[in-house]
């Protein structure tokens, strides 16, 4: 079996079915570009989530008699704490005024400052998971002088839920896209086999090996899948460029997208071809001839 022959036969087959081949590669590209777009969106969602986690703060409210310096020192010494800052009740009120903006006159109506002093704790990035936050909240709560702790874990919980859902969605899309491109590859190779049925019969009769007969079809399916994958990658890059016009910070994991598109294209091509060959051509040397009995 010679590689040059197999490549030549692959090109001959592609050329003969170029209409089907191009159409199938285009549909595969459309399927794969959907996957690429989801990869880009997910990547950015995870980046956003990671950035949000880096800014997670705990608010530890402090009783009036507590000495702030010692308290801050104790909090900073806890595992997972990046920074702790004491915010006296006057500063809290100023912040509230700033937050309320034009409605800040509402605050002036109050006879006394109702806001407690607090320590704002910034969490190290590795400690921003739901369980770590809950553990830290508990530790801070036990420090004398702390009346209440608000950890913002609801926000983290929501983020974790979103990223989990998106991950499942991604897996679902991956499976659907893979099945779709697999089916397309299968259909193309099946029709290619059907159009070369006579040629395959001759090959079998003269003593061509199974791999000589099968490999051109497998190469054809793989080439089609990879072509679709390459086109999908180009479209994904274009999509990303357009997105950055609106969202300049949007990033694209180029290597991952390229690998996903080409890899999935090639894998679906090989698998689809093998299924088509198995279905049509189960035992190459024994069943395909349809000689009419005398």
């Amino acid at each position, binding site marked *: *079996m*010679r590689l*040059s*022959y197999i490549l030549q036969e692959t090109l001959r087959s592609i050329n003969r079915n170029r209409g089907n081949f191009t159409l199938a590669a285009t549909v595969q590209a459309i399927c794969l570009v959907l996957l690429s777009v989801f990869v880009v969106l997910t990547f950015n969602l995870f980046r956003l989530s990671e950035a949000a986690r880096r800014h997670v703060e705990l608010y530890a409210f402090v009783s009036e008699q507590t000495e702030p310096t010692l308290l801050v020192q104790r909090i900073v010494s806890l595992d997972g704490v990046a920074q702790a800052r004491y915010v006296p009740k006057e500063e809290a009120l100023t912040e509230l005024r700033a937050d309320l903006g034009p409605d800040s006159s509402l605050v002036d109506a109050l006879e006394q400052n109702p806001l407690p002093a607090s320590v704002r704790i910034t969490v190290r990035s590795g400690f921003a998971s739901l369980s770590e936050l809950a553990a830290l909240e508990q530790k801070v709560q036990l420090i004398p002088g702390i009346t209440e702790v608000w950890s913002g874990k609801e926000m983290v919980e929501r983020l974790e839920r979103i990223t989990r859902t998106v991950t499942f969605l991604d897996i679902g899309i991956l499976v659907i896209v893979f099945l779709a491109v697999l089916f397309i590859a299968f259909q193309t190779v099946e029709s290619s086999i059907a159009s070369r049925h*006579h*040629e395959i*019969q*001759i*090959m*079998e*009769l*003269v*003593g*061509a*090996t*199974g791999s*000589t*007969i099968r490999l051109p079809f497998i190469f054809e399916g793989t080439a089609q899948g990879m072509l679709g994958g390459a086109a999908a990658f180009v479209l994904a890059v274009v999509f990303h460029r357009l997105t950055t016009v609106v969202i300049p910070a949007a990033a694209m994991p180029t290597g991952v997208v390229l690998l996903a598109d080409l890899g999935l294209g090639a894998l679906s091509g090989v698998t689809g071809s093998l299924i088509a060959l198995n279905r049509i051509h189960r*035992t*190459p*040397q*024994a069943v395909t*001839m349809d*000689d*009419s*009995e*005398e």
Partner: protein
Amino acid sequence: MTDIPQSESVNAVELVGVSRLYQHSWPALTDVNLTIEKGDFIFILGATGAGKTTLLRLLYRQDLADSGKVKVLGYDLKKMPLSEVPHLRKRIGIIFQDFRLLAERTVYENLEFVLRVIGTEPKEIPGRIQETLNRLGLVHKKDSYPHQLSGGEQQKTSIARALVKEPEILLADEPTGNIDPKAAADILNILKDINYRGATVLMATHDADLAERTRRRRVTLDAGRIVRDET
């Protein structure tokens, strides 16, 4: 791996008690015993449905016998795994009544295709094709497509395709069935020449007169049984 005796003494074909039933238990062959020595020329005679094509199909392992033993060039075909079938078929040439040429390839390309798919060294290919075309008087037709050839020329191309891989056995299934008497005589002469050069030739035909004129061994089948074996 199947045992593949290669010695000169191995018969080309040995059938011992071979039976083949088709669907609905219709017996295509029943208890066929036949030995063909290497270098023989043998006619398989019989009317339509007598079992000639079934017999040939068993020999190139397109079909398997339900019982009995089929040995071709020393290969026991029942024990032969599918992966070994190409090795057997490389040593056998097959010719059909309906030619089975590739319509979109020229005469030259039909022959080249065969040599390429069986893995012949590329530098050997042009020489072998040229020699085969010379032998069959087809050089002037090498760039023609099958539809541009007469029936006789198409059958000659089909023989050239079988011959180009230098087979030890040539199986011809009604090779003169679709061509005029003059072309049929030509084809027969070519087959005799192939046999003269050492290949074993089995020709299935319903034309008993043609076989009788040729004065070679004639095995007659009737309803799947050998009813006559004359030399």
